[in-house]
């Protein structure tokens, strides 16, 4: 187990380092990142002064090392627009996004898992076909469109829910559904595949032969075994939900880091955008490591395989 854990952590460290490097490359791909950080209409002197101040007149390798050194000290740079550390701005908005992602994950798991189970249990029937249509729709409708439709129906026409804002729990409902729909489909598909696989195994037939009802076999054995692959999906979906918040938060005026990312792009505050990308990617790496550990703890074949 220890060897497996260390190997996986090293792999995660490589991924984090790689993410940091890719973000650096992207920020420099336009040639001069200073131009990304000045307000529109700045004079040539102002630009030159800022370039010097931020070290963008140094050789690229020096800049890269300074960037790495800064990150090692949790120094993510100062927002050029607001004159405060970029990380502080992002962290002040992060709780809203976590709140939204938690709501969306609840929707996705709460609807996706039962749908997947029902599809597997009713394989080949009309029930499966109907649910398959729901799943397909979930993965084919863009989040901004479902967001607009939800607002039109439940806020404008029926006046049941608020169009935007974060005041109450009812404000969380529509953004969670819009954001969670795609993940719901993923969970349903994974759950269905996992369960169909399990149902085809010998122990199911053996248990049935011993006289257990199908219901008992599913409840006692199949569900537990097919839950394992779903853990991995859940971990990956957390990252996707945080990233998907960029669009959903814009539609619902939700004050999380997704909306902040778009606002910062518009006000040309790219250090803030950079922090958001780094942060979500780190969370993504961390959750997938956590999922692998959980997976290994449950299933001895994984930790003993190496």
């Amino acid at each position, binding site marked *: 187990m220890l060897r497996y854990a260390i190997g996986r952590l090293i792999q995660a460290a490589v991924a984090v380092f*790689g993410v940091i490097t890719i973000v650096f490359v992207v920020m420099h791909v336009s040639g001069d990142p200073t131009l990304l950080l000045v307000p529109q209409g700045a004079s040539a002197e102002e630009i030159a002064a800022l370039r010097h101040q931020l070290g963008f007149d140094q050789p690229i390798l020096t800049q890269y090392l300074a960037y790495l050194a800064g990150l090692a000290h949790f120094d993510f740079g100062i927002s050029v627009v607001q004159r405060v550390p970029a990380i502080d701005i992002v962290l002040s908005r992060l709780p809203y996004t976590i709140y939204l992602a938690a709501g969306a994950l609840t929707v996705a798991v709460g609807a996706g898992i039962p749908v997947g189970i029902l599809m597997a249990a009713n394989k080949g029937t009309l029930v499966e076909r109907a649910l398959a249509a729901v799943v397909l729709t979930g993965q*084919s409708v*863009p989040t901004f469109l479902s967001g607009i439709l939800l607002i039109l129906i439940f806020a404008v026409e029926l006046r049941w829910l608020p169009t935007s804002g974060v005041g109450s729990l009812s404000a969380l409902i529509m953004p969670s559904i819009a954001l969670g729909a795609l993940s719901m489909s993923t969970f349903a598909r994974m759950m269905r595949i996992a369960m169909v696989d399990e149902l085809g195994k010998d122990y199911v037939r053996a248990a049935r032969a011993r006289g257990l009802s199908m219901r008992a076999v599913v409840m006692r054995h199949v569900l537990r075994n097919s839950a394992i692959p779903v853990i991995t999906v859940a971990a990956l979906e957390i990252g996707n939900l945080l990233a998907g918040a*960029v669009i959903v938060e814009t539609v619902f005026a939700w004050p999380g880091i997704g909306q902040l990312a778009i606002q910062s792009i518009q006000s040309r505050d*790219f250090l803030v955008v950079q922090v958001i990308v780094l942060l979500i*990617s780190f969370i993504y790496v961390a959750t997938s490591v956590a999922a692998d550990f959980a997976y290994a703890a449950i299933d001895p074949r994984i930790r003993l395989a190496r």
Partner: protein
Amino acid sequence: MTNALAAIRRRTSRVPVSILIVAVIIAVIVAAAILAPWIAPADPDRQALLSRLKPPGTIGRGGVTYLLGTDDLGRDLLSRILYGARVSLGVALLSVFVSTLVGVTLGMIAGWFRGWVDVVVMRLVDVMLSIPAILLAVLTVAVLGPGFFKLVLVLGLTRWPRYTRVAYAQTLQVANLPFIKASELAGAGAMRILFRHVLPNIAGPILIVATSEFGLMILFEAGLSFLGLGIQPPASSWGSIMSVGRQFVERAWWIVAFPGGCLVLLVLSVNVLGDWLRDRLDPRSRIR
């Protein structure tokens, strides 16, 4: 007519009706995009400020019928959707092409040469997959600035790792087959073996990935354009039409509804087709 239809049906009897339907939908949308300049009833950019936000079916000045209504500048929505289809499909198709080219080449090379090439390429794949794609695309498009070809490049270069994983795994399997060994012994070079012999044998799984990616690329382009980061006016894609329509959605639902409907119909059809291809070509595959 019915005879002709029956003849077609006989030839395609092994294909389920639902697949025929989605294939027809996709074909119609593609044809509409290609033929846009000839079938569009009006110039998509011609503004008529007196006919703003007219509902579908309105007959405008000079006897023009706005079949799907007009937008906030009085432009004919049907024509804008037809021209927008070219941009949406064009971006999706070209970016899938870019990521297939990059991803499959890297995957085959990593699977064939193994050793340090394998380590470097597959680590890079892991790293790329650690950044949520939509986020990387948002950052890159924001840095580079908007535009058709930049969008293609950004989407193409953020989405190649999935192809690499599949091409890599498939190449590892194919590399040990006798006819590959034979052609290696016959003195064929690595590139010849990879592109002449390996590629045709791994094309099925790659086609499956490309199909599901195509649907995703349509959604990505629409999302980026909706955020104002993609296609810029006066050019328009379905996403950018909806982005404008969102501001008027309470007064003029059609500006969002029709391009949105086209988009969902197309993505839905592509996903159905992709699922079917997966079941047909690769029944045991679990690639995601």
